């Protein structure tokens, strides 16, 4: 089964990405995690996202486009990216999620992918 391991990070974690003193440790941790997923043969895709200040939220109201600067939900932790893993069941997915750096620095959400061909 495929699961998305979604990475939610607080602002200070996003800041570390471009901060000279923390940059190396930050990316190093995610790189090591990616590598572990790949070596275990469970990596199945994923992507990192730019920080939430680059985000735009849009909806239509009576056919008119409404645009808002920033992410949809204004919460302390924001989506920073996701890993897609292919593992036998939820327990295994949760074990991998627990190893994700964001499990320590923020929150990790695990959700099964919905296979569109089955619908």
């Amino acid at each position, binding site marked *: *089964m495929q*699961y998305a391991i979604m990475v939610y990070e607080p602002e200070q974690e996003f800041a570390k990405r471009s901060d000279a003193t923390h940059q190396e440790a930050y990316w190093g941790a995610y790189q090591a995690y990616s590598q572990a997923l790949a070596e275990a043969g469970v990596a199945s895709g994923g992507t990192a996202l730019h920080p939430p200040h680059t985000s735009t939220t849009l909806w239509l109201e009576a056919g008119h486009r409404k645009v808002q600067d920033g992410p949809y939900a204004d919460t302390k932790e924001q989506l920073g990216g996701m890993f897609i893993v292919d593992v*036998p*069941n*939820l*327990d295994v*997915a*949760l074990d991998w999620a627990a190893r994700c750096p964001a499990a320590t620095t923020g929150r990790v959400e695990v*959700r*099964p992918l919905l296979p569109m061909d089955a619908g």
Partner: protein
Amino acid sequence: MDARRAAELAARNSYGRLVAYLAVRSRDVSAAEDALGDAFLAALKTWPSQGLPANPEAWLLVAARRRLIDTNRHARVKAATIPALEQIAEQVAQDLQAAPAMETPFPDERLKLLFLCAHPTIDPGIRTPLMLQTVLGFTATDIASAFLVAPATMGQRLVRAKAKIRDAGIPFELPAIAHLPERLEAVLEAIYAAYNRGWESISGADSPPAELTDEALWLARLCVQLLPQAAEARGLLALMLYCEARHAARRSPEGAYIPLAQQDTALWSMPMVQEAEATLNQASKLKQWGRFQLEAAIQSVHAQRAKGGTTDWAALVQIYSGLVQISPTLGAWVGRAAAIAEAHNPQRGLQALDDLPASPLKTYQPYWALRGHLLAQLQQFDSAKACYSQAIKLSTDAAVRAFLAHQSEEL
């Protein structure tokens, strides 16, 4: 237990076995329930009046298969369940031909289902209802009334939990040894919660109490049977047997509440007390102490009154002190204070109550009842009355309310 009740429990027993077997194979609890639901309802209707069939599982399977073939339910039942149902029906038919008296033609997967319901990713509040529905076949309406929730809400929460089990890929296998204790703990907690729902008869005087006690005992026996090395499973079974043994003594013939200390021990069920003693003994030999064994030990001390006529309160203080170390619940702290009051004096019992954090106790009925009782013994009648009135407000049982009101009026 009367014959009707025994037949009903047998129907729930067979139904649970079949649902578990099908669910483990189809990985879909709702689909398994769908496939067997009509047959189970028919069994609930006919078995108590016409008697148990020779092979209950075979009866249910034949009925379920017939329904699948000759009605359009076929379309509603998830495709994955049908081959599993066909396979098991075939197997049971063959086994029965070879040995008609055979009792268990297929493996018992109910423990897997219980542990599945106790998976850490399932909302703790829905675990017990889920077990009661999947393993014992209670409807959302039955469960809702026992848990004081609107039936529609309970129904939705159960459906959501089962959809999560199916779609999130929660494994149906028994957890790895490392995870077994925490999951067993959740299973035992859920069984005990089910037992207390029945025991407290929270639905009040106007409607019959929620009868979940037999089912809870039965689930605990199942855990003991399937995990004989788990001391706490035996501890829970012993605890519930001690409490159940006092069933007939808890109410007067007129339905009035009788507190433990005033119960007529001649009304206690001695065979049940003996079974509880034996079970607790077996548990203690396994040398893994836990909350349920300590709680059973407390009940064991109370049970001694049937033999010696007195209660060893000093021993109770000791056991409660151990219990609050490993399981610091409000009930354990208040029970400890009550034991201290009896072993020493009301003043010290009151002191033990005063040492507890106040805020969670504000809405805890036993705290106010005990406080009122101790203050009354210390001749502080006005304060005692205020505590009794608080306890009355917090009691959900009409008989307990009447008892407390009487205590208060006597002052």
